[in-house]
């Protein structure tokens, strides 16, 4: 039944992303102990809001450090009031650990870690309110945080979810659509080269539909990368005007 409702509602808007709003560097920090770059980042997409913080350390623990590149450490956690049902543990449960691992995998593909041997880059993402597409919003927020921190990357990493409902591919699923039982695919893309950093799909899907679904997600990601680029350039303009005077 929910499939029918969704189909009627989204026939026309199947390729549109929900309204997104990004802002860089919205908090200021002062640290006097470790020389490190900290850049908080806020991402608000319609009803999901997540601050992401990215921190880079010049050194990290002996056991974890790598001699030729930086270690990327991600922590994904959700606020206890972020979901409709109150969540008891903000992080440490299986889903959060799995998400942290996925984020780490995504960013190891994008960040030029060879430039920082024996260092550690920490990315902390906290979900304040969840309405589907958690992973994609995290990736987008973390991308902007890394850009704000000045960490060199190969390309923006844009992520989006896509689903298939009654033969219509939908981009950017909300919570009701994700839990409605249809397929949902999460894709993280490096737009310029078209390389996929992470691809994840749950539920069954006929192989003929897979291409259409990936195509829908990739188009959405490319659109998103233009928005991210615009925001970064705008922020840069504002900052350069302020620092010039």
């Amino acid at each position: 039944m929910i499939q029918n409702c969704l189909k009627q509602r989204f026939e026309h808007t199947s390729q549109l992303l929900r309204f997104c709003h990004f802002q860089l560097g919205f908090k200021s920090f002062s640290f006097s102990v470790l020389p490190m770059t900290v850049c908080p980042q806020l991402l608000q997409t319609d009803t999901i809001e997540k601050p992401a913080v990215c921190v880079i350390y010049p050194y990290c623990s002996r056991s974890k450090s790598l001699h030729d590149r930086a270690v990327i450490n991600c922590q994904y956690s959700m606020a206890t009031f972020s979901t409709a049902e109150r969540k008891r543990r903000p992080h440490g449960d299986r889903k959060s650990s799995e998400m942290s691992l996925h984020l780490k995998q995504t960013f190891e593909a994008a960040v030029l870690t060879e430039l920082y041997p024996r260092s550690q880059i920490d990315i902390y993402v906290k979900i304040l309110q969840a309405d589907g597409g958690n992973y994609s919003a995290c990736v987008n927020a973390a991308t902007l945080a890394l850009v704000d921190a000045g960490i060199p990357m190969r390309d923006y990493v844009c992520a989006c979810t896509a689903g298939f409902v009654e033969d219509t591919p939908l981009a950017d699923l909300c919570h009701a659509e994700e839990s409605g039982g249809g397929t949902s695919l999460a894709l993280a893309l490096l737009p310029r080269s078209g390389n996929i950093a992470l691809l994840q799909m749950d539920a069954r899907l006929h192989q003929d539909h897979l291409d259409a679904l990936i195509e829908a997600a990739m188009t959405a990601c490319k659109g998103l990368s233009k928005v991210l680029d615009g925001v970064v350039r705008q922020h840069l303009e504002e900052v350069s005007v302020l620092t010039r005077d």
Partner: protein
Amino acid sequence: MAAVQVSEAEKVYVMHGVRDDLRLDGRGCEDYRHMEIETDVVSNTDGSAKISLGHTDVLVGVKAEIGKPKAMVPDEGYLEFFVDCSANATPEFEGRGGEELGVELSNTLCKVFNNRHSMDLRSLCICPGENCWVLYVDVLLLQCDGNLFDAISIAIKAALFNTRIPKVHISEDEEGVKEIELSDDPYDCMRLNVKNVPCIVTLCKIGHRHVVDATLQEKACSVASLLISVTHRGTVTCVRKMGGGSLDPESIFEMTEAGKRVGKALHVPLMELLQKEESLGKKRQKVGFLG
């Protein structure tokens, strides 16, 4: 807590300044930093508030659920507190690093707020002995720059003011089994009376004087601090001494008096602001986390 290291020269500088009633940012000893409060920021909750006090950012969400009342007081509901120190605030809080601080904060908040003098817990009762409303108050620390207790208490008061609990109808069928129905209308809800909810004032002793709303740097220069929770009438509901140093009885008396004065003065503007925000209704521009 996220600690800042200060040199001896800086400590002396801060102490001399405080002695002359002039702090690092030009405030007087009993002045608060610039405070911004906004309610109803998270739509998944029954009530929420965000406060930024200088560089300290706290987000509080209140969720109401139906549960069983405690055996000792069957006709009252209760509040449960959980403080989450997120890694966004400082990397020391990653994983389980923030748990200790979180537990300390939750326990103190429980003592201060979860009693019948602060809140009318009877109004949270649905069926005496069987069902009651349990308010889960979740505090999220987004940024830490000293004076967490004050910011959290003000945010809790604002969030409780903003909380809307749906009204319930109890129907009993033939066998005597009670059924609880929540009303479907989202506007048919019960509000909480937050008049008696106290606000916490933390006073830190630096040298021979005390300061209100200490930043991390000033905290590093102080030996001990006193936490006082004050209601709008000036009644002191809870006093706690924190920190490693010792305080002499006269200082404690002085600090309590100052705390009462400052705390009493906090309530009136806070309630005015909350009521003004509420009266704007739908026309209010939500700033949320941007700006």
